C-alpha cells in the first residue's frame, strides 16, 4: 500500500465513522451499537499497539480496561465528579497499575509473559467480585450515570442523547488514535517495530529492550483504559466481566481478525466481532459456540485477518 492508497483508506474510515449513527439504522443496527464498535475498536487498537506493533502478546488487557471502567464509575458514584474528571480518575488508576505490573513482568517473553498477564488480570477480577461494598460485587456498580458535560458555552447532553454520546466517544477515540499514530511513526515507534521484527538485532543496535517493551505496555494499557472509561459511561454500569480474561481474549481476536499488522485492522475486527456478537446473541442462546468458532476459524484459515487478505489480493 503506497502513501496515496493509505491516505485514501484513512479518509474512507473517518468518513464512515463520522456518519455511522446515520447509516447504522439502515443495516439493522442502532446508535448504541455504533458507540460500542468505537469503544471496542479503541480497546483492540490499543492492545494492538503492543501486540501487532511491538510483537508482545498480552492476554490480560481487560484488567486495565476494567480498571478504567471501575475508576470512572466509582468517581461518578462516590465522588460525584463530572465526566471528564471521572475518566481521568479511571485512566490514572489503570495506568499506575500497568506501570507497576509491567515492571514486574517485562523480563518474561512469549507464552510465559502471556500467562502472567492473564493471571494478573484475574487478581483485579476477584477484587471487584469480592469487594461488594465498594464495587457492587457480581451485580456490578449501579446507581449512577454519565452526566452532561458543561463546556462553559454549551451543555453537551451526553446522557440524554445517544448520538451526542457517540460523537463524544468518537472525539476521544480520535485523540487517542492520533497519538498512537504519531508514536508509531516516530523514531520511538520504529524501535518498537524493531523489537517486533528481531529482538536480538534490536538489542544489538543498542536499544534497551525491556525498557521499551515496558513503555509500550504502559502506553497500550493507558489507551485501553480510556476505552474502559467510555465503556462504563456507555452502559451507565460496570461489572466484573469488564475485567475478565475472556474479554482480554476478545480484544486479541478482534485485532487478529481485522489484521494485526495494520493500523486500522483492529477497528475492522472490532466492528465485525461486535456486530456478529450482537446479531448472533439475539437469535440463539448458543452464541458462545459461534464466538468460539470465530476464534478457531480465524486462527486456522484467516490468520492474517481481513486487511491481510485484502492487501494480499491487491498486491497481485
Amino acid at each position, binding site marked *: 500500500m503506497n502513501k496515496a492508497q493509505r491516505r485514501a483508506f484513512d479518509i474512507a474510515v473517518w468518513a464512515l465513522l463520522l456518519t455511522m449513527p446515520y447509516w447504522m439504522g439502515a443495516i439493522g443496527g442502532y446508535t448504541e451499537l455504533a458507540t460500542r464498535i468505537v469503544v471496542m475498536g479503541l480497546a483492540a487498537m490499543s492492545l494492538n499497539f503492543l501486540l501487532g506493533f511491538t510483537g508482545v502478546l498480552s492476554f490480560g488487557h481487560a484488567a486495565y480496561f476494567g480498571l478504567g471502567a471501575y475508576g470512572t464509575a466509582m468517581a461518578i458514584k462516590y465522588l460525584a465528579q463530572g465526566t471528564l474528571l471521572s475518566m481521568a480518575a479511571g485512566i490514572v488508576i489503570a495506568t499506575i497499575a500497568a506501570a507497576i505490573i509491567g515492571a514486574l513482568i517485562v523480563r518474561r517473553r512469549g507464552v510465559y509473559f502471556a500467562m502472567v498477564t492473564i493471571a494478573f488480570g484475574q487478581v483485579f477480577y476477584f477484587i471487584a467480585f469480592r469487594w461488594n461494598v465498594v464495587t457492587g460485587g457480581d451485580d456490578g456498580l449501579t446507581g449512577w450515570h454519565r452526566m452532561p458535560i458543561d463546556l462553559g458555552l454549551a451543555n453537551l447532553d451526553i446522557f440524554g442523547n445517544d448520538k451526542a454520546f457517540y460523537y463524544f466517544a468518537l472525539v476521544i477515540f480520535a485523540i487517542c488514535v492520533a497519538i498512537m499514530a*504519531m508514536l508509531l511513526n*516516530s523514531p520511538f515507534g520504529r*524501535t518498537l517495530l524493531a523489537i517486533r*521484527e528481531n529482538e536480538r538485532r534490536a*538489542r544489538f*543496535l*543498542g*536499544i534497551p529492550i525491556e525498557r521499551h517493551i515496558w513503555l509500550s505496555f504502559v502506553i497500550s494499557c493507558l489507551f485501553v483504559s480510556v476505552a474502559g472509561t467510555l465503556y462504563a459511561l456507555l452502559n451507565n454500569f460496570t461489572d466484573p466481566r469488564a475485567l475478565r480474561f475472556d474479554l482480554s481474549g476478545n480484544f486479541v481476536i478482534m485485532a487478529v481478525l481485522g489484521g494485526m499488522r495494520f493500523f486500522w485492522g483492529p477497528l475492522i475486527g472490532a466492528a465485525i466481532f461486535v456486530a456478529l456478537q450482537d446479531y448472533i446473541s439475539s437469535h440463539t442462546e448458543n452464541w458462545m459456540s459461534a464466538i468460539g468458532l470465530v476464534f478457531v476459524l480465524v486462527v486456522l484459515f484467516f490468520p492474517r485477518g481481513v486487511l491481510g487478505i485484502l492487501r494480499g489480493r491487491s498486491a497481485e
Partner: protein
Amino acid sequence: MTLLQVRNASRHFGSLIAVDDVSLTVEPGELRAIIGPNGAGKTTFFNLISGFFKPTSGAILFDGEDIGALTCEQRVQRGMARTFQVTEIFPELSVADNLRIAAEVAAGLRMKIWLGGAIRREIDARVDELLSMGNLTDKKDKLVGALSHGDQRAAEILMALALRPRLLMLDEPTAGMGDQETYDIARLIRRLHKQERLSVLLIEHDMRVVFNLADRITVLAQGRVLAEGTPDEIARSETVQAAYLGKAAA
C-alpha cells in the same frame, strides 16, 4: 590505547570449557581475523565479548574500561557493533527502514516521538550514504527479508556500520555464499576497514578472505589460542596446519 584487550578470558558451561584462557588485543585500525576448526569456540568467544554472558574468569577491556559487567546494549552503546552467523535483520521492513532505525538509535533519537525536518533530512542522508556503500540504493524499498543472502548480509553489516562503531565484529560474514557474493562482501569489508578506518574483528572460514584482509590472525582450537601472528606466519605454522588436518597439536 589498545581498543580491545581480552585478558585470560575463560568461559565454562558446567564441565564444558568453551573458551580456555584466551588473550587477544586489537589495536585501533587493525583488522584481526579469528580462525579455527569447527567447535573451536570462536562464536562463544564473540558472545563473551559482546555480552551474552560474563567470563568465568579473566577480563575484557574496551578502550581501557572493564566491560565485564555491562549488558549487551551498553556494550553496543560504547561502540561495539556485531553481525551474526545467521543474519539478524528486520525481515518485514524495507532495507531503508532497517538502516533508518539503526541510524536513529545511533544519533540518540530512540526515545524521540517527533522529528524536526532538519534532523529527518540528516537521517535520510545518512541512510542514503549507507545504501550506496553497500550498492543497495536501487533495492532500498524492498523488504530486506526478500533480498538475496549476500544482500541481506551486506544490509546487516551496514546496520552495524550505521552505529558508527569503534569496533566492528563480524561472525562468518561469507558463510553460505558463492564466489561472487564472497568477493562483494570481502570488498565491502576492505572498504570499511581502509576508507572508514574501522577496527574489525572477523571470524571466518574462507581462507582467501582471511589472508587477503587480515592484519593479524589468531587461531583458536578447542577453546584455546593455538597461534597468533601475521598471515605469513600463520600460513607457515606447522601447528596450525596440524590442527586443521586433525592431527594432535604438538
